[in-house]
């Protein structure tokens, strides 16, 4: 590569970026990504494109595919915050030391009922979590999952439980 090649590379990137800009805007709008959160997504994708340019055949398709995937990951991450909050709230309910016996019994019954509505593997996992207080490594060991997959499975189960609890609550007055 000679020094003369460099402006050409920059020019081709600039053309590519201008070409892809309208499509990116529509993509972000469709995925409802707040503008302030798009900066990291675009920057990460473009840097990866630059670093791997030689291996990539169709840079526009690559970029759109990569950014679409990052938008999905963005929402999954946002949703994970929601699931974590619901999880923390349930754990707090369960640990409430001042709850009268009847109230605690009702709470456990409602939670058990909610968990019973979920698929089998979530039933086992969440029962261990809320009744025995198991953390992820213990859950993985007890249920025979690898440490790397237990977090994904826990998130899926928390997602299912969150839907159910948000729709019906666990302390109906």
């Amino acid at each position, binding site marked *: 590569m000679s020094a003369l090649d460099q402006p050409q590379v920059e020019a081709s990137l600039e053309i590519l970026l201008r070409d892809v800009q309208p499509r990116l805007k529509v993509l972000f709008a469709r995925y409802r990504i707040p503008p302030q959160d798009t900066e990291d997504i675009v920057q990460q994708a473009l840097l990866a494109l630059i*670093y791997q340019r030689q291996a990539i055949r*169709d840079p526009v398709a690559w970029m759109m595919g990569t950014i679409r995937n990052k938008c999905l990951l963005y929402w999954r991450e946002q949703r*994970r915050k929601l699931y974590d909050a*619901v999880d923390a*709230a349930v754990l707090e309910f369960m640990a409430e030391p001042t709850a009268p016996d009847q109230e605690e019994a009702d709470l456990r019954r409602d939670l058990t009922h909610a968990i019973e509505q979920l698929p089998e593997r979530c039933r086992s996992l969440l029962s261990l979590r809320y009744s025995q207080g198991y953390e992820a490594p213990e859950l993985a060991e007890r249920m025979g999952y690898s440490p790397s997959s237990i977090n994904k499975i826990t998130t899926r189960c928390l997602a299912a439980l969150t839907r159910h609890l948000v729709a019906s609550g666990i302390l*109906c*007055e």
Partner: protein
Amino acid sequence: MTDHPTPDALEQFILGQLSTAETREIAFHLLNGCPHCQQATSTLWEPADSFEDPTILDVICQEEDEASADGYDAVLDRVFDKVAATEAAFAAQRFQAGALLAELIQVPAERQHLLVTNSQRFRSRALCDLLVEESHETGFQDPRRAVELAKLALLLVDRLTAADCGGEDVRESLRARVWAQLGNAHRIHSNLNEAEEALAVAQELLAAGGVGLFDRARVLALLASLRRAQEQFAEALRLFDRVAGIYKKLGQWNLMGRTLLQKSLVCGEAGDIEAEMSLLRRALDLIDPQNDPRLFLAARHNLIHALNESGRSREAFALLFHSRPLYLKMGDRMNLLKLRWVEGLVAAGLHRHDQAEAAFREVREAYAGLGLDYDAALASLDLAGIYVAQGRTADLLRVTEETVAVFQSRSTHREALAAVLALCGAARQEEAGAGLVRQVSEFLKRARNNPNLQFSANP
């Protein structure tokens, strides 16, 4: 409960856009069982659910998208400027890395390690990239060197910081690729245990979640190749499906075609020749012959081979006729030899024994002349098949004895020698049939990358 969250707050709650404290507060409110807010949130899940399904997104009103898209211009302009500056810096860095690599490969191994470990000048992400590429390119010509280059890349990547790489994710992606390439080099060098260990580290990095989609596909493809070498065909097929899925997502049709070609090899080795041909046809639809003529020709070559193997030699002959210009266009010695070899195989399939014999002889002598004894031995076995078909027992014995002599003169491939000796023994007893020749030939092809394979002749 009287203080209900606002509709906006509920929407942001469902989309996960609130702070931890706000999220927690609304979560408590809902879990306490507020029918009003439960009702209000019931319809809010749908937009976020649709993000997981791109086909639903496609029907969302385009005008609405465009109207709300203008807010992104300022951010995109800012990022584009920043990235353009980074690209210029990266191009310069890559240019320097080429010079560093040239410098590095000229010095002895100990010195290479010293330079990579101690010299700040060599602490470059672009150099690490080049070492991975060079290791990959070198793989089949010089597997030992490919392993050394990958180990050097590993030494280097462990010294690179996130700042050297342009971010933690980029560094983790590079680390995963380096480990995967080391595993791949070990695989090609027939060290399957070392390959397994290296690729296990790459898999751990994938599981940690920081590796980008494109690098994930590259790592999984190398893992699938290892599973193929280990004859874990079902796992190899599953991994290639994941790789193809990623390339589809990224619109990389050529790479998807390459993946289907790799997957077809697994089907062929697993004995599913119909699936092999179907995948090769799909691969040929995806690979661009202008951009990647070598890959396109490889897929065509394999399809001709598979058609012939499945007894459809007339179709194989027709496809070969149309493909001949591609082989000639490539023009390199190895492709021309592949052409001559497949011409012999198709001629044998059509029972044109004289043509087949002439082709196999030519191929065998050319490979022997190039010092590629293993390929010469495989061509000899095809020649042996012709002699069996014609009942030429003396010629059969001669060609098998010649092959034994070649293997005996080399200390490698002990099991391959055992297989050829078994054939030679049967030829001496005038008991070598087409089935045994085929068994030995198939064994030699499989044992090539797996010297631990044991030969046992089936009756």
